[in-house]
Structure formats: structure tokens, C-alpha cells
């Protein structure tokens, strides 16, 4: 608890720097990532982040020190080379884009690993800590380095903000952007440069292996919550910032923990939560809607059952026992769900029970009549307008009867000329 308090009050200047750096880099990566996601270039981000490793190693070999300026330049160069290689392979060979991305990613990363192993075996004292670039360590963010990263992050945020409109246009409708005279190729170039820059900004804290996740995951999660691109980008920035903060805290509380993987774990958790629980698009709300529909169907089918039983002797409000109501073949539902539906109908005061038997209330009878009516109207519509044989229309009407709105009902009635009989020559009841 004390560490959390220490952390949150930012009393330690070191912590302050680390937190600030982390939040800036993860939120700027998320902002760029939102447009990469919308342009359907997520894999490219992955390739770039892996491809910066040989650049970092080459810079170290060249300068013999962990000078951050050299490292960043090296990373930028190989990140860019990887993008060019992907474009070249796609344009000039039979290899398709996904394969080209995979190829470039593994070749660049492989070369990077070979170089890193070589450096580590070389016994150069300055090399210790170079492996932090693989998985990241926020604690290594100090002093002037931090300043550089913060400036880069702010540059990213500002540039993406400036070109927000143009990036949106290109992502949505590329030919149209071109027809308007927008410099589409240059905008592509800008976005890919920003991608490389975002990756480079993140490598010390997150590491090259996982940087792609920090680009894409917050944006993918944000897409679940909104259909408004501005809100989506801000949400992505928020998710990214939170992941950055959480990652910094965990590696502060437990210094043995690498920051990058924890940031990725946190942002993945946000993403998973979004996939499952985001309103309307999440899996759980979707399942809930399905469940609700099933309950409505069961209830209405039970009401209909009362009506059909009543139709036999024109005594609609008579008491019915369980055997009559739950004759399985007719209801197409298990008796337990029918019993549950009956209970719900009782609480809605659509049926009443004397303990053993049930009967419809007046409102229940009206509702039951309406469902039967819609069923038969729809059957008639199918035979009359869609030329479906009368013995083929029942199953379709079984579904449609539950969803027809009063407006559609009026329209249906009007088009059919206010009919009295359905295709099976049974009466269409009126309320």
C-alpha cells in the first residue's frame, strides 16, 4: 500500500520521470496505432517494431556506447528499410503482402538477434543493459534520455492531431482522397514514419518485441466502445496511458519485473474486457440480447398455447393444467423453460394460477390473440405475395410473429385488405 501511495504522489523524482515518460510514449503510440488499425495495417506495425533491433545493435557496434541518439537513428533507419523492403517485395515479386511482412519481420529480427548475441559475447563492458531493448525497462528511462523520448512523443501527438482529418479521409476512402488532390502517397509516408517513430519512442520502456501490441491493442479495444472516430482515438489514448501508468507502477513496486510485458498485459486485459463487455458490440451484451429474445419467444409461445387450447371450444379464459400446456411436440420447447416462462407471465399478470392450473387474464388473452393474429397475417402475406405454398409458411411465421411492430402490423393488414381467414382457412382473430 505504501509503495502505491509513494508511486501515486510521485514524490520520488525518478518515479515522476518514469511515469511521465511511460504515459507519454504509450498514449502517443496508441494515437498513431488507431490510424494504423483503421488503415488495416496492423501487421506492418509488428514488422517495424521487430525490424528496429538490428538498427540498435548496429548503432552500438558503430559507436561503441549506448548513446541514445545513435541508437534511435539506427532504429529509425532499419525500421524504414523494413517498410521499403515490404513495399518492394510486394510490388516486384509474386510474394503477397502478408508473406512479405512475415518474411521481412523474421529476417530483420533474426539479424538483430545475431548481432546482439555477438555483442554480448564480445565482452564489451558497455553492452550490459542492451538486452533491455528486447523487453524494455522503464527504470532505464532517466535524465536526458527521458527528455528526448518525451519530445518525440509530443511531436507524435501534435502531428497526428494536425493530420487527423487527412488520415481519416485516406483510411476511409483512398481513391476519393486522391481525386480530391490529397497527396495520398506522402500521407502514407508520413503515417509510416510516425509508426517507426512511435516504435522507436517505445523501445526502451516496452522493448521491440512487444511494441506492436502497444500500437494496436488500445485502438482495437477502443473500437468496441464507439462509432465515432474522434472518441475512438481519445479512448485509445486513454487506454494506452493507463497501461503505461500501470506498467510503470508494477515495475516500480517489483523492480525485477520488466515494464513492457506488463504494459502489454494491462492493455490486453483492457482489450479482453472490451471484447466481452462493451455495450452492443461485446460478446456478453450480445449473448444477453439473445437470451432475452429466447425468453420473449418462450413467453409468447406459452400465451399462444393458451389461445390454441381455448380455440377448441371457444373458451379462451378457461383453466388449463400442466399436461395440456406442456405437450412437448406442440410447443417445441423443453417443459422447464415453459414452466419458467409461465412463472414470468404470472408475475407480469398475464396469467393467473390456482396452484395446479393456470388461466389467461384479460390482458394475457389480448396479447395471445395478437400473437396468433400476427402469425396468421404473416402466413397469408407469404402465400399471397411471395408465392409460398400454404403448407410451407408455418415455420417462418413462428419466428416473424414475435418481431412485427404495431406499425408493420397496420401496414400488413392494409396490404392484405383486412382479411378474415388465413391460408389454412382458420380465422384471423381481431382484438
Amino acid at each position, binding site marked *: 500500500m505504501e509503495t502505491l501511495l509513494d508511486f501515486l504522489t510521485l514524490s520520488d523524482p525518478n518515479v515522476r520521470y518514469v511515469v511521465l515518460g511511460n504515459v507519454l510514449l504509450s498514449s502517443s503510440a496508441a494515437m498513431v496505432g488507431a490510424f494504423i488499425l*483503421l488503415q488495416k495495417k496492423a501487421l506492418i506495425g509488428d514488422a517495424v517494431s521487430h525490424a528496429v533491433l538490428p538498427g540498435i545493435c548496429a548503432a552500438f557496434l558503430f559507436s561503441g556506447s549506448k548513446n541514445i541518439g545513435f541508437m534511435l537513428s539506427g532504429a529509425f533507419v532499419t525500421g524504414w528499410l523494413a517498410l521499403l523492403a515490404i513495399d518492394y517485395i510486394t510490388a516486384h515479386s509474386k510474394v503477397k503482402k502478408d508473406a512479405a511482412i512475415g518474411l521481412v519481420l523474421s529476417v530483420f529480427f533474426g539479424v538483430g538477434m545475431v548481432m546482439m548475441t555477438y555483442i554480448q559475447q564480445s565482452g564489451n563492458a558497455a553492452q550490459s543493459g542492451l538486452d533491455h531493448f528486447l523487453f524494455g525497462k522503464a527504470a532505464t528511462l532517466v535524465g536526458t534520455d527521458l527528455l528526448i523520448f518525451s519530445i518525440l512523443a509530443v511531436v507524435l501527438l501534435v502531428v497526428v492531431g*494536425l*493530420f487527423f*482529418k*487527412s488520415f*481519416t*479521409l485516406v*483510411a*476511409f*476512402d483512398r*481513391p*476519393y*482522397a*486522391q*481525386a*480530391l*488532390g*490529397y*497527396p495520398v502517397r506522402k500521407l502514407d509516408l508520413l503515417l509510416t514514419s510516425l509508426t517507426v517513430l512511435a516504435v522507436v519512442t517505445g523501445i526502451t520502456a516496452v522493448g521491440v518485441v512487444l511494441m506492436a501490441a502497444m500500437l494496436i491493442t488500445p485502438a482495437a479495444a477502443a*473500437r468496441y466502445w*464507439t*462509432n*465515432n*472516430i474522434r472518441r*475512438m482515438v481519445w479512448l485509445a489514448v486513454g487506454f494506452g496511458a493507463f497501461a503505461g501508468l500501470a506498467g510503470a507502477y508494477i515495475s516500480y513496486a517489483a523492480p525485477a519485473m520488466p515494464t513492457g510485458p506488463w504494459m502489454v498485459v494491462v492493455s490486453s486485459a483492457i482489450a479482453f474486457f472490451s471484447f466481452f463487455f462493451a455495450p452492443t458490440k461485446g460478446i456478453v451484451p450480445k449473448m444477453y440480447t439473445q437470451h432475452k429474445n429466447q425468453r420473449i419467444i418462450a413467453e409468447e409461445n406459452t400465451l399462444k398455447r393458451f389461445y390454441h387450447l381455448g380455440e377448441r371450444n371457444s373458451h379462451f379464459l378457461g383453466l388449463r393444467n400442466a399436461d395440456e400446456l406442456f405437450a412437448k411436440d406442440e410447443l417445441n420447447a423443453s417443459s422447464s423453460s415453459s414452466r419458467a416462462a409461465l412463472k414470468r407471465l404470472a408475475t407480469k399478470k398475464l396469467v393467473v394460477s390456482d396452484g395446479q392450473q393456470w388461466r389467461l387474464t384479460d390482458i394475457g388473452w389480448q396479447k395471445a390473440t395478437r400473437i396468433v393474429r400476427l402469425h396468421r397475417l404473416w402466413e397469408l402475406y407469404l402465400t399471397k405475395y411471395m408465392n409460398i405454398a400454404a403448407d410451407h409458411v408455418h415455420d417462418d411465421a413462428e419466428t416473424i410473429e414475435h418481431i412485427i411492430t404495431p406499425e408493420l402490423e397496420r401496414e400488413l393488414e392494409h396490404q392484405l385488405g383486412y382479411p378474415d381467414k388465413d391460408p389454412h382457412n382458420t380465422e384471423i382473430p381481431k382484438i
Partner: protein
Amino acid sequence: MIVHTQEPILEVHDLMVTYGRKPVLWGVDFTLPSGCIAGIVGPNGAGKSTLLKTIMGLITPSSGYIKLFDRSLDEVRSQVSYVPQRESVDWDFPVSVLDVVLMGRYGKVGLLRNTGPRDRDIAMDCLDKVGMSAYTKRQISQLSGGQQQRVFLARALAQEADLYFMDEPFAGVDAATEQTIIALLREMASAGKTIVVVHHDLQSARAYFDWIVLLNMHLVAAGPTNEVFTEETIQQAYGGRLNLLSQVGDVMEKRAFPSRER
């Protein structure tokens, strides 16, 4: 039969377009007068959309040139508007109807500036013209095909251009939308705008267009509808007597032969 016009608003000169090495348009050469509703008509794979994309500078021709208002496209871009095929975009994109229509103003406001209240008014006005003003805030994935087409049309209108190129605006739309669109095009033409429409339905072509460009990889006919849109030219375009032409194209592709000697 090719009827040329004096002082054309669009001049397509000896255009040849290839995909890779394979020619898809051969020596297309025609002109359009201003203030007309012109239909580019032809069978599937005739190169109608390709022609439009080439005019809009989205495809570079292998030879020939195009002039709009007697100038190159770059000089007159603000006077030219383009409606791509509806299926060419991802309609699940997180923007609203108004956002899409405002894109029509992006050419005017430039790369960095944002659209202002005036642009908003114009966009609303254009939505009203296509009968979509009730859907301003609607997310675009919730639109029907006909509504999507209307939104695209409103976006093009928002450009306030003089020359409009539309790629299959009548494809897959309901009858009401088709009537709205054609009424709107006629209104625009009577206000002096020129509209070029890629269209594949022969029946309605005669009624909709006063100028026809009949295409099937090469130019079959171009001119006023009642002069050039005859039984004979339609038969020529749709009759499938072009086997030789496409065979030659196949050979060029196979041997990686250039479409011009140098």
C-alpha cells in the same frame, strides 16, 4: 459512330490503359459537351470504371491524354467531383453520415485546416437535396445500400464542382433512390453542370442520358443518345465479337510486350 463536339468540357484523346501488360482500353477517343448527362455504357469488363478512374487520375494511362475544361486535371481539380463505387469503401468505418459528407469539403479547406460552420451548412444542404437530412448523426454502417449511395452523392455535391463523374450510382439501389438520383442529376444539368455516369442497364440508359459513350474495351460509339444509341451499335458493344482483341491482349501480357514501341 463517334460524334465530336466543339469546345468540349471533356476530351479523351487516344487513350490506352493497361493493367500490368494487358490492355483494358484501346485507343479510346471522344469528347463531351458541357451541360449534358452522359452515360458510359457497356458490358461487364468493358473498362467503364477503368475509364472513369483514368480520367480522375487514379490510373496512369500507358498512352494518350485527357483534358478537362481544356486543361489538365491538376489545374481544374476544384471544379471536378468524383463518386467512387459504393462497394469500394468499408462501411463499418467509425464515422457518421455528416462526417462523410463533410469530406466533400476537404478539397476546399486544404490539408491542415478543419471544416468550419459554413462547410457544415453546405453539407447539411447537400444532405437535404438527396433526402437524407434526417440521418445526419447516423453511423454509416446502419445505412441501406440506397442510403449509402445518397450519402456518396451528397458528398460529391458538397464539392460544388461543375463536372461530376459517378461510378455506378444506380447499382444495387432501390427504385425510390434511383428516382431521387435521376431527378437530382436533371436538376443539376439544367443548372449547367455536366454529369458523367457509368451505367450498365441498357433499358434505362436511353431515358436517363442525353449523351452516350458505348464502350467495350474499345470505343464503339459516342454522341447524342438518339443518334448513336442504335440496335446496331448496341449489338456491336454487347455482341461478343471481340475475341481477337482480347486474344491479342493475352499475348501481350504473356510476352510482357509494351503497349507502344517505345
